[in-house]
C-alpha cells in the first residue's frame, strides 16, 4: 500500500482536490480525496507543494514499432504491399526495449496507443493497441489488444498515379476499398451465422467494426478527406475517429454536428506537404469552443518522445483552456478509445498510473518527479 499525501490532485473527474491524498493498493487506486487517513501499513509519500495528474495518454504513438536509431530493421509499422490488412496486430511488432519507452515514461506518459502507420499503398493498416509504457515483454504491457482499426485516406495512401501506378492510386479507390471490405465482412458474418466456412483473418478482424464495437481510426488531414471518411463511415454505419485532422479548425462545426472525435496533432508539423499546409495550433481550441470531442496526440516515437506535454502546451498557448489541455492528454483519449474504465483519471478502482510534478507540466518550469504505472514507480527524479 502506498499513501501519497498533501498534493494538489488533478483527478480529471470533477474538481481539483487541494491538500489531497491518494491511496494505492496493488496496481489500483483504492481511494482519492481530501481528508483521507493513511492506513497504518501504508508506505507514505509526502507530496506537499506538488501536483498529481493521471498518467498521460498518447492517443497516437509509434513507440517500439518504428524503433529509434534503426533503419529498416526497426521499421515494422507499414506493410506497404497490402492495401487492406486489418488483421495485422501492432503488438506483434512492438519492441518494448526501444529506449524511447523509457524516455516517454519519464516524461509522464503511462499509456500509449500504438498502431500500424500510414504509408503509400496502405488503406486499412491493422489493429491499434493500448500499451503501458513499462515492461520488457509486450504481452504484459497490453492494456487492450485492439482499440481501433487504423486506416488512411488522402494523398498519403496513394501510389503515384502518373508515375508508378498501383492500387490505390486515386482517392476513389481508397473509398471503394473500404466499402468493399465492409461489404465482404458483412457477408462473411452472415455466412458464419449460417454454416461453417474457412477462417478468414481479414474479415474476422473487421466483424467488431461492423458491429460498432470497434471504431475505425482514420488518418485524414484535408477537409475533403475528412468528409470522404464521414461519408464512407455513414454508409455502413461504423464508428469513426479521425486522426491528425490538420484542417479541423476550419470545420469545427461540422465535426461537432457529425459527432466525430478528432485526435489532433502533431501541432508543430512543418507546413511542407499539401496535406498539412493549412494546419493550425488553434485546432484544439476551436473544437473545444464548438463543443466537439477531441484529444491531443504526441506521436511519441516519431516526434520527440518527451513531447506530449509540449503538444498540450502549444494548444493552450493558442487558446485552449489549461484544464482542457490536460484532459486532452488524459481522460479525453481514454474516453474516445473506451479504456476509461482503467485509465485517464484518478478515481477509485482505476489503474494507479499517475504523475507527480513539481509545478505545471505544461510550462517549462514543470519538473516531473515521479511516474507510476500499475502502482509501481517507473521513474523517479
Amino acid at each position, binding site marked *: 500500500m502506498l499513501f501519497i499525501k498533501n498534493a494538489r490532485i488533478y483527478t480529471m473527474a470533477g474538481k481539483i482536490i487541494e491538500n489531497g491524498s491518494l491511496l494505492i493498493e496493488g496496481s489500483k487506486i483504492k481511494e482519492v480525496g481530501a481528508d483521507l487517513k493513511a492506513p497504518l501499513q501504508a508506505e507514505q509519500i509526502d507530496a506537499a507543494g506538488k501536483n498529481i495528474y493521471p498518467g498521460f495518454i498518447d492517443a497516437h504513438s509509434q513507440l517500439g514499432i518504428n524503433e529509434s536509431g534503426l533503419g529498416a530493421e526497426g521499421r515494422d509499422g507499414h506493410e506497404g504491399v497490402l492495401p487492406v490488412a486489418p488483421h495485422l496486430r501492432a503488438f506483434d511488432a512492438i519492441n518494448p526495449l526501444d529506449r524511447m519507452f523509457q524516455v516517454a515514461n519519464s516524461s509522464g506518459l503511462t499509456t500509449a496507443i500504438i498502431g500500424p502507420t500510414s504509408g503509400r499503398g496502405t488503406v486499412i493498416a491493422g489493429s491499434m493497441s493500448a500499451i503501458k509504457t513499462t515492461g520488457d515483454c509486450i504481452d504484459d504491457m497490453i492494456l487492450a489488444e485492439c482499440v481501433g482499426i487504423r486506416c488512411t485516406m488522402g494523398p498519403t495512401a496513394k501510389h503515384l*498515379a502518373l508515375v508508378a501506378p498501383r*492500387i490505390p492510386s486515386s482517392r476513389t479507390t481508397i*473509398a*471503394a476499398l473500404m*466499402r468493399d471490405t465492409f*461489404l465482404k465482412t458483412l*457477408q462473411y458474418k452472415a455466412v458464419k451465422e449460417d454454416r461453417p466456412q474457412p477462417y478468414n483473418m481479414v474479415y474476422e478482424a473487421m466483424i467488431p467494426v461492423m458491429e460498432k464495437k470497434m471504431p475505425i481510426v482514420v488518418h485524414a488531414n484535408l477537409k475533403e478527406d475528412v468528409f470522404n471518411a464521414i461519408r464512407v463511415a455513414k454508409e455502413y454505419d461504423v464508428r469513426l475517429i479521425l486522426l491528425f485532422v490538420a484542417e479541423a479548425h*476550419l470545420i469545427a462545426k461540422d465535426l461537432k454536428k457529425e459527432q466525430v472525435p478528432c485526435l489532433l496533432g502533431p501541432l508543430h508539423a512543418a507546413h511542407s506537404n499539401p496535406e498539412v499546409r493549412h494546419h493550425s495550433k488553434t485546432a484544439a481550441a476551436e473544437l473545444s469552443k464548438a463543443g466537439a470531442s477531441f484529444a491531443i496526440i504526441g506521436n511519441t516515437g516519431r516526434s520527440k518522445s518527451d513531447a506530449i506535454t509540449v503538444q498540450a502546451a502549444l494548444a493552450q498557448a493558442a487558446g485552449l483552456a489549461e484544464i482542457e489541455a490536460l484532459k486532452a492528454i488524459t481522460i479525453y483519449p481514454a474516453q474516445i478509445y473506451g479504456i476509461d474504465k482503467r485509465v485517464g483519471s484518478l478515481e477509485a478502482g482505476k489503474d494507479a498510473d499517475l504523475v507527480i510534478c513539481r509545478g505545471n507540466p505544461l510550462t517549462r518550469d514543470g519538473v516531473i518527479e515521479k511516474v507510476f504505472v500499475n502502482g509501481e514507480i517507473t521513474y523517479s527524479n
Partner: protein
Amino acid sequence: MLLIKNGKIFTATENCYQEGSILIADGQIVEIAAKIEGPSEAQIIDAGGRLVMPGMIDAHTHMGIMELEIGYAGYDNNEMDDPISPELRGIDCINPETRSFADARKTGVTTVITGPGSQNILGGTHVAIKTLGYRVDDMVVKNPVAMKCAFGENPKNSYGKKGRSPVTRMAQVAMLRETLIKAREYMEAKEAVDGDLSKMPPVDSKLEALIPVIKGELPLKAHAHRADDILNAIRVAKEFEVKLILNHATAGHLVARHIAKAQVPCVLGPTFTTPGKYEMKDVTFKTHGILNKAGVKIAIQTDAPISPTMHLPLMAAMAVREGLDHFEALKALTINAAEIYGIADRVGSLEVGKDADILISEISPLQYNAQAWKVIINGQIVHSL
C-alpha cells in the same frame, strides 16, 4: 428573399426572351412574371434590361478531381491499375475549394458534372454538383448521374502499352460486355435470394455498382471520339438495353443519323483544341449544329481543367458561328444538360419551384466580350461584377 427586376429573361423553356421579374425565396424560384410586387424584406436587384438566364451547366469536367496545382496529391482522375473499376465514385475525390470552382462561379457556371476520367473501360460514377460550397456532400444536385465508360485510344494507352488488356478495341468491347453480362447474372442471383448475404454468391463491389446500369436507372456515359467508337457504344447499349450518353462525340457529325436514330444525347467538347490524338482528327465546332439539326439533344463541356471552365460560353459561341441556332446554344448550356443527366427537376431552366441558380449578364454570354454581371446560386449572390 431576392427580387430581380427588369430582366430580359431567357427561361430555357422557350426559344425567346421575355421582359420581367423573378422572385426568389429560400433558395428557390417562387414567381416569374412581367411585374412582381415583392415583399418589403426582399433585396432588390435591378437588372436594368440585362440578360437573365439559368445558371450554366458544364456538362463534363473533372473539377475538384484533377487539382493540377499540387501534383499527385491532388490527382484522383483515374485508378491507374485496374481497367474495370465501376465501384469507384467521383464524389469520393472532389476538393470543392480548388480554383476551378471560383472560376466557374465568376463565369456563371452554377452546376458541373464531374467524375473519373477515361483511362479505364469502366471508371466509376459521375456526380452533378453546384459550384458553391466547402463540403461536397452539401453541394450535390444528384449522385450518381452516370457510370463512366470509355472507348477508343485512352484505355489502350493506359493498359495496352504496358502489355495488359485492353490492347485492342476488340478487347475493350469484350471486357465491357463481359462485365455487363456478369452484372446481370449477379443481379439475378441476388434478387433470387432477396439480397440475403448468407445465401448470395460472394459479394462483388464492381458488379453491385453496375446493377443500376443494368436496370436502366443509371446511364452509361461513354467517352468516344471516333465514329466507330461512337457506334460501338451505341451497339453495346442497345444489346444490354441500358441508357447511354455519348461524351465528346467528336466525330458525331459523321454519323449523325445513327446517333439520332438511337436517340442518344451527346455532350460535345472540348472543342477548343488541336487534335492531339488520331481519334480527334475530325474535331470541329460544326458538330453541334449538325447534330442539333438532326434531332440529337446536345450539351457542351469544357472537360475542365483540360480546358478552363470559363470558356464554356465561348465554346457555345463558336458553335453558333459554325451553324448552331442561338437559342439552341443557350439551351445546350442549360436545360439540355439538365435533362440529359436527370436533374431538370432542380436546375437548367427558370421555372417556379426550381433552384434559384441564375446568371445575369450585360450581353449574351455567346458574345466574346460577355462577362457575368451577377451570379446567383441557391438564391445567394456568389459573384458581382
